[in-house]
């Protein structure tokens, strides 16, 4: 259940930003989560609502955008959509492919109540 640690990290980061902006409350948090980031979106939402209780982010809506993973073939240079940590190149069939996106875990923006 590392989603609880992730939720607490989100709250820490968001609370620091909200304080910097002299906000009263955080109403919303926009996140980008790669489909291969190793984070269960359902668990994260569940943990977040529990972890946010009593903090400036209590009740904040989580707006999570999932990022489709993209791989690049190191043989032919093709960029293609990946659904798992490894995949053969859909053009040349090489196994030498690398994931270049899809592991994001980013706080994009927050919505603050003044």
């Amino acid at each position, binding site marked *: *259940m*590392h989603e609880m*640690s*992730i939720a*607490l*990290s*989100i*709250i*820490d*980061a*968001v*609370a620091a*930003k909200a304080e910097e*902006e002299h*906000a009263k*409350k955080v*109403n*919303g948090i926009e*996140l980008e989560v790669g489909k*291969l980031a*190793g*984070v269960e979106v359902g668990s994260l939402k569940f943990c977040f609502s529990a*972890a946010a*209780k*009593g*903090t400036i982010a*209590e*009740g904040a*809506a989580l*707006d999570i955008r999932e990022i489709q993973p993209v791989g690049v073939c190191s043989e032919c240079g093709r960029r293609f959509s990946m659904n*798992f*940590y*490894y995949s053969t190149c859909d053009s040349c069939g090489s*196994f*030498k492919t690398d*994931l270049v996106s899809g592991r994001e*875990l*980013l*706080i*994009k*923006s*927050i*919505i*603050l*109540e*003044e």
Partner: protein
Amino acid sequence: MCNTCGCSSSDGAVIYKPGDASYHVHVDNDEHGHHHEHDSHAHEHTHGRQVVVEQDVLLRNNLLAERNRGYFEAKNVLAINFLSSPGSGKTSLLEKIIPLIKTDYPVSVIEGDQQTTRDAERIQALGVPVLQVNTGTGCHLDALMINRAVREMELADSSLLCIENVGNLVCPALFDLGEAMKVVVISVTEGEDKPLKYPTMFLEADVCILNKTDLLPYVSFDAAKCRENAMQVNRRLEWFDLSAATGEGIDVWIEWLKSKLKKD
């Protein structure tokens, strides 16, 4: 309340020293501690001023991990994060390799478990400095726990630091500790499809050790298939077959490890 010192710290990790019942350090995760009762404010729509953040969720952990990494580099300490499911033989592997390394290089160990100092006691019996981090309910070590533990130790220059993570093939993969490399251990009593079932860990690892090879004649484990599965997930993995129990294959791994310990 902490049941060792009676302080108000109730959750969060605690560092222990085997054989010293009075010693313990709380790894403070303070900012989250305040739970006040509020009416819940559920909103259908989100109102307010939008502020761009663009920050990695694990930024704080990652920054601290880089501080640890800088410290290790400055002291020429090779820090290795050992990861596996519970029971793959991480502690047994350490018990086997430490006596063979410590004649040439100082070795220290940080043990991570949810509870007990059992692993630290096993390592202490080898006569090397060891601290135990008990994560409580936590499922992984993080950079703060390592930072705190390292401050309690006197790491020797040009030494090996073995960090044995909490036995868990999922969560520890996400948390950088500042180590130079991650070593994942699997054993032949597990399934050869483990690298496919827990790919994040194998993707993050630099080295994979297949342990308990002495049991291969007694189990239906396909070692070649397991390696193939792991290589599919991460083709850069360095691979070692060995048995921590019998010592078979240990010399190859020790030789490799010593080559990494030599200053470049």
